[in-house]
């Protein structure tokens, strides 16, 4: 599946829906959406990852970028991680920096 990242802003929350594979070649597209979400000054960033089949380290870097860009007061919620993506998150220790849920 080709990578896609779509952004919706609803009720002070930004929702980015990811699909396909997030690697170095498409990471800039993800970052663009994060920058747009930050510009909207939302209180929460929800990243729906149910359709994300693979995340390379460039994708994880994008998540760290999101955390920095949104600022400390904004909660970041990751939704519906597939097993491989969840393993990457837990192995690198990033799961403590975000909220991980199965459904939102």
């Amino acid at each position, binding site marked *: 599946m080709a990578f896609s990242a779509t952004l919706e802003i609803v009720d002070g929350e930004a929702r980015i829906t990811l699909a396909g594979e997030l690697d170095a070649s498409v990471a800039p597209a993800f970052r663009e959406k994060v920058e747009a979400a930050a510009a909207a000054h939302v209180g929460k960033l929800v990243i729906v990852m149910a359709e994300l089949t693979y995340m390379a380290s460039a994708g994880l870097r*994008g998540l760290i970028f999101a955390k920095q860009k949104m600022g400390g007061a904004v909660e970041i919620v990751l939704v519906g991680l597939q097993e491989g993506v969840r393993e990457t998150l837990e192995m690198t*220790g990033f799961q*403590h920096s975000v909220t991980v849920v199965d459904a939102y």
Partner: protein
Amino acid sequence: MDEGAAKREEALLKLERDLQIGRDIQLSFLPKALPEAPGWELAARFEPAREVAGDFYDAFPLNQGRRLGLVIADVCDKGVGAALFMALFRSLIRAFAQQHYSLRWMGEEDADFLSSPVADRRRGIPSTGTSALKNAMALTNNYIITNHGDTSMFATLFFGVLDPAAGVLSYVNGGHCPPWLFNEAGIKRRLTPTGPAVGMVPDVDFAIQQVSFAPGDTLLAFTDGVPEARDPAGAFFTEGRLRSLVTDPPSGSAQALVARIHAALTAHIGSAVQFDDITLLAVRRATDAAAASAP
């Protein structure tokens, strides 16, 4: 050649040149030769990805060879930036570790620790004596976050300090895929993370673990470019395949193991473009018979 084609050609050449610079940086920061220790064999293999990435391995003596530092790491993302950060991570770890060892030897603390009751040992490593390990990781972590935090760069990094005389490896694993300790009976232990990736979380207290090598035991460290290597149809090599290579046939020399894995990876990748760096580091303790007959 028309102007447009000439411009495109120039842009392509510049891109190739940048990639080559990145590759040269990366290669220049890998060890020229692996250190030696009686009764031990080290072997390593590095295959760069098509696009420059940031894997590295390192092996260096500490305290006049009484200890060996062993590192395997994977800097996030691709491009010349990853290669530059690879150089930075590798240098910081080496410099902080070597600096600390030149000031303080961990020998006495080791002996105290290893002669203490097993129950005490199981509670964890005392902070004295192994502080060089912790310091190198913590200082590197805070350096990256403080000085380069705005880049969001991090590295998964495994750093071990081997006492070749005692056969004991003390290590910190910062978010890196676990190295395996195994013998001909199978994998004895997976050296799982003891802290997060380096450069990701400020002020982390990385925990230290220890593992002992019995004669004939081998440690295999690798980066995720190994299990995630893809064939032309996109299928992963997988950890399961790597595991079967490691346990069957039973482990021979570290060099033979690394060569066998590399051959299987090459066959698997085939005509596909190699997407990620492939890095392997193997450390084997000779069997008693082999050690006894060594010159």
